[in-house]
């Protein structure tokens, strides 16, 4: 320590000039709900990575079937059950894209050379010689379509039902809630199976079967929100200004609950994908030549021992999609849920 004499005199200080016009200035740029939420989602690396993967998957679901020279439903029995083989990657021995299969005794052989096929099937072919690459992406497209449609319809019915039930209240509300309680009590597995049996398997019947029981959770969430908003000042203000009931519900209340609606929808998408795949497994999925991820995995099971790639590739696809949707939904819930906000 040095013994410097530090003298602090009064004239070293000057009063700060206070500008009254600036005292109320907000230093940080003001963010609306979405910008704020985006900031929070961005911090969650898992959710961001999943979102990017999902976007790539969705793009590939439409582009994928077009970038291979083969159609998803063209059969070529001469080329059936060929393993995956990709130009350039076939020489990398640790990747499974070299066109080899293993026999029962464990020896390996190149199926393309043995059968003298000069072609590249990136994900191999199925037992009818259809290109698996095109089928997998077509299947992804169908599975995602079913899931998104089911989720959207659930959302529409659920929001309308919940909003009406909550807003009108009284006896109408209690009747509507009793109906929901009974519907919730019916296991959706049973309803879905019965509906598909009656309607015959297909894309539309599957969507209908999924939505018949699927909308209830959305209706409950929306009703709870409507009940919460009903007594608040902004609704009273709108009412005083002469807004009609429908404009209060749809213009004032629903925009305020976009967060919960989105979270709920995000969770119902993977659920729909699961049920679609599940139906394929119990023999109620889409019929040939249409493919969904579920029917592809199911078909792959039948030839699992000889041609494992037919089961593994679509299985991995489902796994990736499901994990990504769940991570995104979790991330959105953490970001959008008002209860989590600090």
């Amino acid at each position, binding site marked *: 320590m040095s013994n410097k004499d530090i003298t602090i005199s009064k004239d070293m200080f000057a009063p700060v000039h206070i500008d009254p016009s600036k005292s109320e200035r907000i230093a940080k740029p003001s963010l609306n709900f979405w910008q704020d939420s985006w900031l929070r989602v961005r911090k969650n690396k898992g959710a961001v990575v999943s979102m990017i993967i999902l976007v790539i998957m969705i793009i590939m679901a439409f582009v994928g079937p077009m970038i291979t020279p083969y159609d998803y439903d063209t059969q070529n029995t001469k080329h059936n059950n060929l393993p995956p083989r990709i130009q350039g990657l076939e020489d990398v021995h640790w990747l499974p894209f070299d066109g080899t299969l293993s026999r029962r005794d464990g020896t390996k052989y190149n199926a393309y050379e043995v059968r003298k096929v000069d072609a590249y099937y990136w994900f191999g072919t199925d037992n009818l010689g259809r290109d698996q690459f095109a089928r997998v992406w077509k299947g992804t497209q169908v599975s995602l379509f079913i899931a998104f449609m089911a989720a959207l319809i659930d959302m529409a019915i659920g929001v309308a039902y919940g909003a009406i039930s909550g807003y009108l209240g009284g006896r109408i509300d209690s009747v509507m809630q009793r109906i929901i309680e009974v519907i919730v009590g019916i296991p959706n597995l049973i309803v879905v199976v019965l509906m598909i049996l009656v309607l015959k398997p297909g894309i539309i019947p599957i969507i209908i079967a999924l939505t018949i029981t699927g909308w209830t959770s959305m209706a409950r969430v929306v009703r709870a929100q409507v009940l919460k908003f009903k007594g608040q000042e902004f609704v009273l203000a709108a009412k005083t200004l002469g807004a009609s009931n429908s404009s209060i519900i749809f213009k004032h209340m629903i925009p305020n609950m976009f967060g919960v609606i989105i979270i709920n929808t995000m969770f119902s998408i993977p659920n729909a994908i699961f049920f679609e*795949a599940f139906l394929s497994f*119990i*023999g109620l999925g889409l019929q040939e030549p249409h493919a969904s991820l579920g029917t592809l995995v199911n078909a792959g099971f039948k030839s*699992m*021992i000889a041609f494992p790639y037919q089961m593994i590739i679509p299985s991995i696809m489902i796994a990736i999609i499901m994990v990504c949707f769940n991570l995104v939904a979790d991330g959105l819930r953490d970001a959008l849920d008002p209860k989590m906000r600090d």
Partner: protein
Amino acid sequence: MVKYILKRVGYMIITLFIVTSLTFFLMKLIPGSPFNNFEKLSEVQRNILLDKYGLNDPLPVQYLNYMVSLVKGDLGVSFQFDNTPVTELIANRLGPSAQLGFQAMVVGSILGILLGVVAALRQNTWIDYGSTFIAVVGKSIPSFIFAGLMQYYISVKLGWLPVMLWKGPEYTILPTIALAMFPISIAARFMRTEMVEVLGSDFITLARAKGASRWQISFKHALRNALIPVVTVLGPLAVSLMTGSLVIEQIFGIPGIGEQFVKSINMNDYPVIMGTNILFAVLFIVVILIVDILYGIIDPRIRISGGKSK
């Protein structure tokens, strides 16, 4: 509490009535007949057959007959399996299904709770992240995908366990693990949250202050209190196990109810489909009811609010 239980049982009966009626009428809507080569028979033969099975009666009479025999526990006879009564067909298959479900439930909840507790005790270490990872993967990926991948890599490629069928304890390992993945992940997630919350509460601080050992705090004080809310997820878990077992039994060729159900769907054996459907509905509904009541007994807070608002 009594009022709450009565109310729930009332709902249960209404739901069961709706499920059985729905099953009956939807099945009647399906085109086609339950008999083989029905078109080739003459008009008289057809009428004799339809009369024998009571299919010529007006719909309300058929419905009433069905409901009455249902209450008596008679589900009709199978069209495809040599006129075997449906109840007999199902009863023979209850064993494997129950065993598989029980094993998966026990393995799933024990492993899940352990994983959750360890993760909570070692917060933000690799153990915690690993357990979160397992929870996310187990929750997202359907059990049949696990089943397929494990069947291929463990049984076919490595040959460690039998590929399928149901002949002894070693045959049950893979289906149990596949089915248990979902309970493991749900229990682990739930347990971790609860445990973290309990570990932060005042009575744990007090226990620590009076010098209780780490072991004692975690297992004697914290775990017990954190376990209570976990009971709520048991109901949905049991339901998901039943749904999952349909496909798992199919994949591993286990002679259970699920496999019978899928077989009947593929063979259009309506009485068996109806019977299994109703059985599943009863199981689902009763399990949820039991769990709800159990939870009301364990946690008095639910008893009060549950009786009024729900």
